[in-house]
């Protein structure tokens, strides 16, 4: 040291509190979920956008495009609303991806990785917060649909089951979003995913019956996981569904459980593996 500098007083830092690994994993998950929810409070505009967009679509479909739709049961609102709920769950995918990608690019993920905290807590924190947000968005959208005349007639338990299936779909797409956010190299990938969300929703039974599509597209649309969830939600909400369709359409509720389970089974391990391999 060429210049003599006064030695400042030593720093007295606190020591970590005791606790079992499991307890800390839960506490870390809560801390990280709390961080994301605090973001929402700090940026109400973004939340309004995320919740407002599906509502805008709802209003557009009901009041502007409804007239040209040939709806089962004559009232397009009844068949449309469960489809919109499903599509809102799909939009959560890019929301998750944005969050994961931003943290990775800002170096936050690296800082988390340098802390004595389990990888599971980082992913679980994200999962909890995103699910809370999606549940709130869905609640608001359900309310808006009721206001414009959507009427579930299946009874409270069926309606709860429908909401459960919608959130199950969201939960499975969450893992796709985390995985995509971790493998993406830049914002370009995000734009690509956002661009494909819409066509992906339209290539399904969310808004129209797959049987009305050209043969190949119709088959693809029928097997689209969104179709199963939308059909199951219509069935459970007691709304009229599309006529016809093959085996998948006949077993909508079973498929609306099976698809998400398969998606989680594939993408959750991929996401965890990708997170663990960030050090390569």
């Amino acid at each position: 040291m060429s210049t003599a500098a006064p030695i400042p007083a030593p720093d007295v830092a606190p020591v970590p509190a005791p606790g079992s690994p499991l307890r800390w994993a839960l506490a870390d998950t809560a801390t990280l979920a709390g961080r994301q929810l605090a973001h929402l409070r700090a940026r109400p505009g973004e939340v309004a956008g995320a919740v407002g967009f599906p509502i805008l679509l709802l209003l557009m479909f009901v009041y502007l495009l409804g007239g040209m739709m040939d709806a089962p049961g004559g009232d397009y609102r009844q068949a449309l609303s469960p489809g919109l709920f499903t599509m809102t769950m799909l939009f959560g995918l890019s929301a998750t991806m944005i969050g994961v990608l931003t943290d990775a690019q800002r170096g936050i993920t690296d800082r988390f990785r340098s802390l004595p905290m389990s990888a599971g807590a980082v992913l679980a924190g994200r999962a909890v917060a995103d699910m809370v947000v999606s549940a709130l968005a869905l609640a608001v959208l359900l309310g808006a649909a009721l206001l414009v005349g959507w009427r579930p007639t299946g009874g409270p338990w069926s309606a709860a089951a429908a909401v459960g299936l919608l959130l199950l779909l969201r939960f499975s797409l969450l893992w796709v979003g985390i995985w995509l956010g971790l493998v993406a190299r830049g914002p370009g990938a995000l734009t690509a995913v956002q661009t494909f969300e819409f066509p992906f929703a339209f290539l399904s039974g969310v808004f129209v019956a797959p049987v009305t599509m050209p043969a190949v597209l119709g088959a693809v649309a029928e097997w689209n996981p969104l179709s199963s969830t939308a059909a199951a939600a219509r069935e459970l909400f007691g709304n009229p569904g599309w006529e016809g369709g093959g085996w998948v359409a006949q077993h909508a509720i079973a498929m609306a459980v099976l698809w998400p389970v398969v998606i989680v089974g594939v993408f959750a391990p991929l996401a965890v593996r990708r997170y663990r391999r960030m050090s390569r």
Partner: protein
Amino acid sequence: MPPLAVHADGLRKHYPGSPAPALAGVDLTVPPGTVHGLLGPNGAGKTTAVRILATLLRADAGRAEIDGIDVAARPADVRRRIGLVGQYAAIDEVLDGRRNLVMFGRLLHLSPADARRRAEQLLERFALVEAADRPVSGYSGGMRRRLDIAVAMILAPAVLFLDEPTTGLDPRGRAEVWSAVRALVASGTTVLLTTQYLDEADQLAARISVLAAPRGAGGRVVAEGTPDELRARIGGDRIEVVVRRPDDLAAAAAVVSRVAGTDADVDADLRRVAAPVPDRMAALGATLAGLAGAGVAVEDLAVRRPTLDEVFLRLTDRAEVGA
């Protein structure tokens, strides 16, 4: 004997898809309780080395230990002992300064009360009290940097990595960071600091490793020692003569070369002749006498120690030409 705070042996890293390796065998030895400077030009591999030591990146070959613990074999144990301030501030932009400190305190497993108390202490220490309730997105670069360092100091880690901690700070901000680093070292933390500012390494570091990546062949340590040893390594003191008349340059160069026992460097624009000399006082007398004898009109004559910047440029240049 306590284990070394940082010990790296033959670290190699080649990023997939990159044309050349980033590290081509880096060794580092840092005893506990000291500050070690890792000095190198852009692309020398400083960040890569730090990321390997901080368990964020796996080396292709070689081994590294923190406090005697292998970073590849027991990353979780290493993470309990380190703090990391990356080259780019890694704090939450949306939250305010205080919430950032409390959040990271909780993630470091402090009790809620301790996390809050520590946050106040660090806000105070880093002159962030007034900004504590504002979102970080509205902070200046220097404030961000200070908050980033404060976060890394929450637990007083055994080993703290600072990757260019004062890049972009004004002199006051740098002084604050330096004093915080000294306080940590006084309480027993070992610091590994990368920097491009030589005065920073000179101010803080007991020893310096100079990292260079000659012709893209991958970073390696081209020199290691105390700041004084590095100065001595490139020839110690230099004598410099500025002549009044350009015509006298040749005569002055002859005198200085004879005294120094080596060819003097001549800078015609500055009318300056310079050469490294082993014994400053003897060289001064002999040069004065020689110049007077040759009838050279002298404007300025000085013997001075090379600055660390000169040392740095020499060492890395030498590596670039492959010497």
